[in-house]
């Protein structure tokens, strides 16, 4: 490992630390409290769960913009099943299963379309975001459907274990699962291969179609899981539930060093990205920056992060070119 890699490894915790330090200095009484940290973690746990799956399409060089809409759909499916099932515990299991299945189905559809036709993934998932949103509106009749019981449902998003909100456990365990899949399984290895060079992967006997379909399915699954947590936390289902979450997900992934060109990135990075976005949201709120500026700031952050990624990639490949031309000029 060379110096640059060491710096790279530790720069992320350092950035978080510096940011926390700044916020502590600026807001010494509110920021560094256990309850504030808990609320930060709670706030990021929803889109944190989404990230755990949404990173897979990005690693393949694609993208899934439908995660927010899928979350709303799955939340609605779950809540409706529970309400229709008379709030029984069995209906909770049934509802959660149906919610998760809905997410998996949407992911499957994405995967099939994207692997069989030469279509831009962003456009397909953007279109399906609208379709799914429309379906959720139909399901909920465009109403807020509240679901205050049973406890087994409300616990998912609102419960506490050892004093820590339950969604944080879900987020951390999903991050762990996703980390293990990506780093310890053959599937994870294949994701990096296909993202890095699809042609070479196919010639090495990796089924890029299967990998792609599975990735979009997993992305749908985690989005659905996040949707269930959100519905349980708010004790209601609404078509607009997770609108705009795809932006936070995308920001966190990109800020976390995952390249939109595919083949490069990590769960650790994305979790860092999620923490950063969470801290930033929290900080902006504590500093009294009106929420209307938040979208502006986040947009600017995405642009900066992607521009930086592309700049550093070009610089790397540009360096080779530069050396060659320097050699050429040197001889003249």
């Amino acid at each position, binding site marked *: 490992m060379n110096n640059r890699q060491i710096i790279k490894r530790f720069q992320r915790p350092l950035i978080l630390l510096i940011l926390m330090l700044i916020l502590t200095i600026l807001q010494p009484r509110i920021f560094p409290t256990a309850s504030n940290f808990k609320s930060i973690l709670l706030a990021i746990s929803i889109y944190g769960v989404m990230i755990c799956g949404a990173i897979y399409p990005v690693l393949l060089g694609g993208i899934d913009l439908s995660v927010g809409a899928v979350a709303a759909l799955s939340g609605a499916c779950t809540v409706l099943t529970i309400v229709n099932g008379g709030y029984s515990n069995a209906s909770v299991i049934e509802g959660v299963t149906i919610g998760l299945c809905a997410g998996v189905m949407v992911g499957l559809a994405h995967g099939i379309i994207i692997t069989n036709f030469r279509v831009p993934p962003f456009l397909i998932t953007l279109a399906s975001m609208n379709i799914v949103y429309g379906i959720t509106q139909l399901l909920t009749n465009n109403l807020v459907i509240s679901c205050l019981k049973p406890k087994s449902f409300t616990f998912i998003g609102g419960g506490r274990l050892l004093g820590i909100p339950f969604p944080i456990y879900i987020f951390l365990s999903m991050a762990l699962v996703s980390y293990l899949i990506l780093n310890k399984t053959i599937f994870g290895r294949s994701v990096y291969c296909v993202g890095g060079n699809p042609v070479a992967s196919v010639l090495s006997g990796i089924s890029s179609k299967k990998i792609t379909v599975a990735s979009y399915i997993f992305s749908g699954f985690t989005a659905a899981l996040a949707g269930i947590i959100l519905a349980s936390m708010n004790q209601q289902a609404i078509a607009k539930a997770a609108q705009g979450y795809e932006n936070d997900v995308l920001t966190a992934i990109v800020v976390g060093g995952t390249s939109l060109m595919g083949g490069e990135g990590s769960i650790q990075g994305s979790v860092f990205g999620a923490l950063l976005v969470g801290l930033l949201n929290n900080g902006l709120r504590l500093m009294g920056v009106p929420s209307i500026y938040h979208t502006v700031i986040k947009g600017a952050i995405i642009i900066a992060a992607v*521009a930086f990624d592309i700049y550093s990639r070009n610089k790397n490949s540009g360096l080779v070119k530069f050396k060659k031309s320097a050699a050429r000029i040197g001889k003249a």
Partner: protein
Amino acid sequence: MRQETIRRLFSLALLFTLIIIFGTTSKYFLTPNNIFTLLREAAVTGILAVGVTFVIITAGIDLSTGALVALIAMICARLLYSTTLSVPVILLIGAIIGILAGSLNGFLVAKLKLPDFIATLSTQGIFRGLTLVFAIREHGVISNKVIQNPAFIILGGHINGLYLATIAFIIIAVIGQFILRETRFGIYTYAVGANLKSANLSGINSDRVKIMVYTISGLCCAIGAFFLAAKMQSATPEMGIGLEFDVIAAVVVGGCSFSGGRGDVFGSVIGTLFMAVLTNGLYKYNFPAAYQIIIKGLVIVVMVIFDSMYQKFMEARTTKAKKLEDMYAQGNGPETGVAQ
């Protein structure tokens, strides 16, 4: 028959099928009143579609149009409300903002080399946020003031039933088509989209072409914003949400391909009419709004898949010598196709 003609006939067939379906099943559909309303509804989408056509021909995309329309409309409303500037000056300011916002998109895509959808998705967020910033507030609450300036409201008026917005749409479409087909810049737009490398080798400044097309799209957003604000006689932070979607749907129905180099403004006009007829028909049948969203999404998915199959078919027909990469790329979806 030329490929373009076949594709054009296909779009027309889609449009007329829809007109026949609605025309025969609803007696209100083909009344002059409804047609004028339909054309008015089509106008704003259509004006935006003219700009987006340029962008998509260069193999790019603009997702920020809806938000930019809201931003410009809001700024105009704000200026009308809180200053005494004359309407032409305000329109000029709006147009300049459109041009600046468009060239910002162009700069991000051409100079910073951001993937176009990321760049315009981010600026969408920025424009939408700025719209809130400029919103008129009373006691801290956003209040959507009615625009009362008669000179501005004229833009929402009509001549013998034909709305000014429709007339503007027609004029802009004709200008757009003229630029695309009859000028140097138009040729360069196609060249950049169809074969970037060759375009550069031919001495075309492709970065400048890209910045220009996004700028055109921004200007079209400004014009669209004027007519939308005049029609609604107000500007709200939520206006134009999802509008970019109608525009993209219209453009793909009209024959533009996301791989670039194909399509033209007249195609997009047909696509716009298709989307307007669809919306109008669904509305007439009292379908819930949710169906509209679903159907528009499906239109995009189906048309994009159709486009991909059509491209494959064209390639198989015209070039025997395909690159090896293409052979494997079939079905290896991860290439975004735009992010190159």
